[in-house]
């Protein structure tokens, strides 16, 4: 039983560590900001998830203590990672992309991060 739990914890730790390293290396390796957005948020939350599962199993199976703080950290990270990525994308669009260069949204609303009036006026003046 101890060997099985040790194997499970070790596998979770190794998976979490590899995913964390891949996420951080992808942040270094990917070419531009918009493609860099997806590497750390996917892989680091998966890496953190593996480490937190290993921590829960370690405390429950080896130390015989049952803790809930890891679940709190997991839920908090899984909720906040997409929100911060969304904010980063919005800020990048606001600073670097002009409204003319963006593709059509297909709805009445313009792109997020710009005022509603601006893309309408730009479309009206160009009218190609």
């Amino acid at each position, binding site marked *: 039983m101890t060997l099985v739990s040790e194997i499970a914890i070790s596998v979770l730790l190794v998976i979490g560590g590899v995913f964390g390293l891949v996420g951080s290396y992808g942040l270094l390796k990917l070419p531009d900001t918009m493609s860099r957005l997806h590497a750390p948020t996917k892989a680091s939350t998966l890496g953190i998830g593996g480490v937190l599962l290993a921590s829960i199993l370690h405390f429950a199976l080896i*130390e015989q203590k049952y803790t809930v703080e890891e679940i709190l950290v997991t839920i908090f990270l899984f909720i906040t990672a997409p929100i911060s990525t969304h*904010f980063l994308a919005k800020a990048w669009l606001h600073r670097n992309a002009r409204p003319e260069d963006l593709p059509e949204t297909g709805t009445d609303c313009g792109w997020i991060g710009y005022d509603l009036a601006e893309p309408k006026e730009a479309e009206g003046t160009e009218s190609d």
Partner: protein
Amino acid sequence: MITYAFWFANACFGGGLLCNLLQFIRARDVIDRVQAFDTMVINAIALLILFGTMNATGHYFEASLLFAMVGFVSTVAFCKFLLRGDIIE
């Protein structure tokens, strides 16, 4: 075996932290810096949890929760400042 797994995970997240520091230094745009900082916070949380689990104490979970909250709030505040020029309007 479990000790080696712990040290392997520690080395992985430490290497990830170094990658983020390199990205933080060589980034050209402010957004890249904010993103590297956000990922640094995530790796630091993982290191804290690993340390707490290795030493079998629960004190580090509160610290990692605080880290998660402060990292999220600071990322959102940076992005809000870059978007609007003000954090709370």
